[in-house]
């Protein structure tokens, strides 16, 4: 009887452990990182504060969790090597502003969202974590976050199958190749873009 009960307990225990396995197999430092970062983001996005306050609150969170420098280096592609140290520094400073503006301007489109991790897969660039973003009265959005580490940081984002940093790199390299491979020309264009973004922010336009 005891043996039968034990074996039943053992079988039930083993079964419970097995049901937990897929969850355990999915959890990695990258998924944990995305889960934590996502929770912090959704907390700000879902708060009743005004849009501008949310945009300000989100900035330090992005700076902490997104490897903006690595993305910036990648986006300059083969021109990173030909750029002088001074040009690199100025470019990265401008890129930081361009990227943060692009992300914070999306804040208004993601109010009261909920986030769910739907899968993860290793890749040469880093671990890809799929997320499903549910928005009230709007269609769900599927995105893939590419995380590299340790320490875990976001190095790319995929939306509708397109890598954000690869698309940006195509933009910059095409611009450079049409402007005599001159990094200075790109820096000037980025300065103009940052000035335009600031003007739009001042006018309250997205």
């Amino acid at each position, binding site marked *: 009887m005891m043996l039968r009960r034990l074996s039943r307990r053992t079988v039930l225990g083993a079964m419970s452990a097995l049901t937990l396995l897929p969850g355990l197999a999915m959890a990695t430092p990258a998924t944990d990182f995305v889960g934590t970062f996502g929770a912090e983001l959704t907390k700000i996005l879902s708060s009743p504060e005004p849009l501008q306050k949310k945009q300000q609150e989100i900035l330090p969170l992005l700076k902490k969790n997104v490897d903006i420098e690595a993305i910036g280096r990648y986006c300059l592609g083969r021109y990173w090597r030909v750029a002088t140290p001074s040009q690199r520094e100025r470019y990265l400073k401008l890129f930081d502003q361009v990227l943060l503006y692009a992300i914070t301007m999306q804040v208004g489109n993601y109010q009261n969202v909920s986030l769910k991790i739907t899968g993860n897969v290793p890749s040469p660039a880093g671990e890809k974590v799929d997320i499903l973003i549910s928005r009230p009265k709007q269609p769900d959005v599927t995105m893939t976050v590419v995380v590299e580490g340790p320490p875990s940081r976001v190095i790319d984002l995929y939306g509708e*199958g397109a890598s954000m940093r690869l698309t940006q790199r195509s933009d910059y390299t095409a611009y450079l190749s049409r402007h005599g491979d001159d990094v200075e020309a790109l820096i000037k264009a980025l300065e103009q873009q940052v000035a335009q973004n600031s003007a739009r922010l001042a006018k309250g336009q997205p």
Partner: protein
Amino acid sequence: MARKACRKMHHKRGITSLRLVAGACALLTLSACGSWRKPPPKDPEALQDYKQANDPYEPVNRKMFAVNSWAYHKALRPVGRGWKKYVPGPIRHSVASVNETWREPSVFFSDVGAGKSRRAGDAFMRYLINMSAGVAGFIDVASMVGYKQHETDPGMVMSLWGVKSGPYIFLPFLGPSNFRDIAGYAISQGLTPINYVPRGYGLLSFNWGYNVLGTFNTFADSTDQLDELEHQSLDPYAYLRSAWQQSRQGQIDVLKSDHRATTPDWY
């Protein structure tokens, strides 16, 4: 006899001049094509970027993109924004639903061609349900009962069959594409029943309305993205090319990896 010879001579001269004209045209076309083509760079790293862009006809594509941008700013954008602002959401959704439903036969045959029975079943059921319970597609009842809309087109199927994409191409009003997908677009038009409405029918005007409104609705939904593209990129042409190529490959990858069972989710 002389007359005959003369006629023959004239005919021969005609043929010769025709040949000359044809030759000149061919040469002109070739030289024009030469100026249409962007020569591959010699620098190995630049060559890698050139190959990745897959855009040897970039000079002419950029001209087409400029035409498109001009039309967008002068006419399409204001009308598109007006459409979005003044036409009530339910009407816009109905137009979108009609557009999607009437394209379902093309989606169905594409799914069959891709050997994806689950997707083909979904497309078939969507057409059946929306054309009947959905009042000719005006209400997307199929989505409500678990048959969500998906896109499969002959271009994607050809990719699965191993047909190479060919160079990137940008066409005004049709947007980014490639040689394979343009052929796919032509096939999908042939697989769409509304295109077979005979002349003289009142339905012909409905066909026009369907096509124009459907395109318009899709376009109006894209104006925000197009504006964003212009504000956030230094070279909108290159940005769009890269985003489209990746997104298209993403669609094909999703189709390739769709191994779902034939029973729908609600079953």
